């Protein structure tokens, strides 16, 4: 009897199993060439040519596609092989008996890492259980989404209470006599913070092109956050800088170059975003594998080729007050108090105390509170963080808004919410509902990747952003893979998606009779879930 090697990794334990139909295969080699994970390779099988039990030794060699079985090179289900196969001879099939992550830990004695998003999905989606239930009819007229004018703009930057504006009355007119914190009016969607490094330079460039196009051609004042990875010098010196929110996180990557270029900047950036935490992996810092640290990433960030770890905490900060005094003051001062400085934190049970504390900051220098929910995406994370840490966005956003309401300070530090928006294909509806619950705007990164061609999903497909082998050329720096991405096409698709979202937002504003953003208009929402109704303080419907 043949010995079975139970303790060796077997194909049956991998997350995806390749189904290969030899009869359709023309041996063109496209599937093996396209597989960035080296999960399949050509192989030779020896087969008997006769079924006779008396004849022996008559065999033939057959060329086949074989699935690799290894901890490093295994199929992620990205489906690229199927896309390139002219005859549909090959496909990856989900393996419900997958034990890969167990085997990984057992053999490597290391935490299992992945990219993309959480695949556990135990929490369900609150936003899908909320509907826009207040339809203006005979009491107040609804609007026509096509014909009426709508204003989709929201303040970004510290908003002072009216008493603190200190206007002086002269000749029956109000005059601003004292300097006030910087405040800008922007589109309520922000392209989320993905760094050059985490995403390919082509993907980053496509986002930047789309941002500029939306602003300068379409008149949509959308902003893009750079992520913590710096920004090309040419862009720093260009007029397009005014559309970019520069991010600083615990690694301070790229800031050497930003600071050195400051004398040559012709425009102020749109804002500064201090990243404290990320919704998809709160508690983890940034993680850029050395394989993705190419020469230009090294140059922009000012680092050697090595694993780049942004610490989970900002070293040297131990309290909210201190972060206000050190980080906010210094970032404000760096741009002469002309640029809004905002903060991004992972949604957490502690978000309300943090928000309350910032609301009371005596310097009035916190210009935005970005709250990131657990269903957001990430370039790389420990699976344990991705699947088991974080806080859903909806209730925490609502908590923060209502905490401000309690003090009569809603809107003073604009709230921006993100994390899993558009997960079920309805980005505009998700954004609209969060705005009604109190958000000034939303931000998204993952949605942009999906628009650009990401093949990953929430049920285990791909999610290999951490490997640097992104088959769509999005989260890789491998020149051959990056070439798969058509910069202009991606930029065009991003622009189109925002234009579509703009139409859809108006289609939701019109029936509730709103021509400006319905920030905090939770009276427009209903839910069929009693618990959600109680928790979010919106009307229960059945």
């Amino acid at each position, binding site marked *: 009897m043949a010995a079975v090697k139970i303790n060796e990794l077997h194909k049956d334990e991998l997350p995806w199993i390749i189904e290969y139909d030899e009869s359709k295969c023309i041996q063109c080699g496209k599937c093996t060439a396209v597989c960035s994970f080296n999960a399949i390779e050509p192989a030779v099988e020896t087969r008997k040519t006769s079924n006779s039990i008396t004849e022996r030794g008559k065999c033939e060699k057959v060329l086949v596609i074989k699935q690799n079985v290894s901890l490093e090179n295994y199929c992620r289900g990205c489906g690229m092989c199927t896309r390139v196969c002219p005859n549909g001879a090959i496909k990856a099939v989900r393996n419900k008996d997958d034990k890969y992550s167990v085997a990984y830990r057992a053999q490597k004695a290391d935490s299992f890492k992945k990219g993309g998003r959480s695949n556990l999905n135990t929490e369900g989606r609150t936003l899908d259980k909320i509907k826009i239930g207040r339809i*203006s009819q005979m*009491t*107040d*007229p609804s609007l026509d989404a096509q014909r009426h*004018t709508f*204003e989709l*703009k929201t*303040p970004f930057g510290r*908003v*002072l*209470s*009216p*008493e603190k*504006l200190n*206007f002086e*009355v002269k000749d*029956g*007119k*109000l*005059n*601003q006599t004292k300097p*006030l914190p910087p*405040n800008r*009016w922007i589109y309520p969607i922000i392209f989320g913070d993905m760094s050059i490094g985490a995403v390919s330079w082509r993907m980053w460039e496509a986002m930047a092109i789309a941002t500029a196009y939306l602003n300068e051609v379409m008149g949509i004042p959308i902003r893009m956050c750079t992520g913590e990875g710096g920004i090309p010098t040419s862009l720093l010196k260009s007029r397009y800088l005014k559309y970019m929110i520069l991010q600083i996180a615990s690694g301070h990557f790229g800031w050497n170059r930003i600071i050195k270029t400051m004398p040559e900047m012709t425009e102020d950036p749109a804002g500064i975003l201090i990243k404290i935490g990320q919704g998809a992996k709160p508690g983890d810092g940034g993680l850029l594998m050395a394989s993705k640290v190419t020469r230009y990433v090294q140059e922009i960030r000012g680092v050697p080729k090595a694993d780049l770890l942004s610490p989970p905490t900002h070293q040297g900060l131990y309290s909210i007050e201190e972060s206000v005094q050190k980080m906010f003051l210094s970032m404000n001062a760096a741009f002469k108090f002309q640029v809004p400085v905002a903060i991004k934190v992972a949604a957490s049970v502690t978000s309300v105390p943090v928000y309350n504390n910032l609301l009371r900051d005596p310097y009035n220098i916190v210009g935005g509170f970005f709250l990131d929910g657990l269903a957001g995406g990430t370039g790389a994370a420990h699976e344990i963080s991705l699947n088991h840490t974080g806080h859903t966005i909806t209730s925490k956003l609502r908590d923060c808004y209502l905490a401000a*309401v*309690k*003090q*009569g300070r*809603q*809107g003073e530090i604009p709230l921006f919410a993100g994390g899993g928006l558009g997960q079920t294909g309805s980005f505009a509806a998700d954004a609209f509902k969060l705005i009604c619950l109190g958000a000034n705007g939303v931000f998204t990164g993952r949605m942009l990747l999906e628009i650009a061609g990401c093949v990953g999903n929430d049920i285990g497909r791909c999610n290999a952003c951490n490997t640097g082998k992104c088959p769509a050329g999005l989260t890789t720096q491998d020149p051959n893979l990056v070439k798969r991405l058509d910069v202009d096409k991606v930029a065009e698709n991003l622009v189109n998606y925002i234009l579509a979202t703009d139409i859809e937002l108006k289609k939701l504003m019109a029936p*509730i*009779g*709103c*021509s*400006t953003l319905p*920030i*905090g*208009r*939770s*009276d427009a929402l209903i839910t069929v879930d009693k618990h959600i109704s109680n928790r979010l303080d919106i009307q229960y419907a059945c």
Partner: protein
Amino acid sequence: MCRIGAIKSKDKLHPSIALKLMRSQQKGHDDSGFAFIMQDMGGLFENYKDLPLLSMAATVEGTRLAEDILREIGFSRVMQWTPDINNKKGLKINAMPNYVFEVLQYPKSYSHATCEEKQELLIDTAIRLRKVLEESNSGFIYSFWPDTLTLKEIGSPKDIGTYFNLWQENSDLTSHIITAQCRQNTNYDIVRYAAHPFFLEGYTALVNGENTFYEKNKFYQMSLYKGYLGFESDSQCLMYTLHYIHKILKWPIQYFKHTVTPLSYDEILKRNDKEVLLRIKASLANLEINGPNTMLAVTPEKELMCVCDSKKLRPIVIGRDENTVVMTSEVCGINDLLPNRDISNDIYPNEHETILVKDDLTIERWQQ
């Protein structure tokens, strides 16, 4: 939809004029009520303009509770007027047992108090009375302020007029300003406090429309000032906003329009005062109204004001002759009151306009 009206005249007006103004505009069917506020009083109240005038409807128990509180604080009654009730059979009115209209003297300890201190006492007392009457379900306090008289009741406007004998003109009950609402129907519970006109510290407001930003307004106003309470009607929010802009912030009154219907960002950018307007748009975003509303108001300076929503979705017309200015929802009401006026002087305000009728009846029109 409510029909609203405001009359300001050099003559002394009897409330019958308010009934006449509203009569032809009535199209409703649920007889939800009639209410009016008289300011700049004549008649019996003319000699007591500086003293607080309490307007209250209550049960016997409620009246006793209120009187006890007023006495405890130190107020003393100077004069009382009781309406001549005609309780004939078949009137559609949901009347209260007592209607109290009395002029009070301030407590002795306030004999050297400043105007602000006296006003503070009045608002604190009004809030306390309201709380006690509410808790004991024994009545409603509508106004407690000098030179101001309020009456609100549920029922058919015509029958309310008959019940209080308001159709019969006389010189006892008169004033130079009357604001009135003939409630046609109400979409919500019929509650006396929800009936316009609303009054707070010299500011009166009537609003025709639906405040679709009610929840936003309310959430913000709840903690802004102690007098902002009730919120029984979404229209109260507009009065509180007017009070906040003009009395608390002490901003010129034209900034009320910039607050409730701010110009669009693109329009603001074209203006010289863009910095100020953008700050108002951001800092007072919670006081915006975005639905259909026309508001009439009276200021402590005895000026009438009219402001429309930014889409001009609700009607209003202003007619005048030498002695009187009338603002109301439909022109037929003005035709009944001022049939001989020059109709070419009628004003139909636009969506950017604020109309202010000064105390001498001159009219100012401001474009936003």
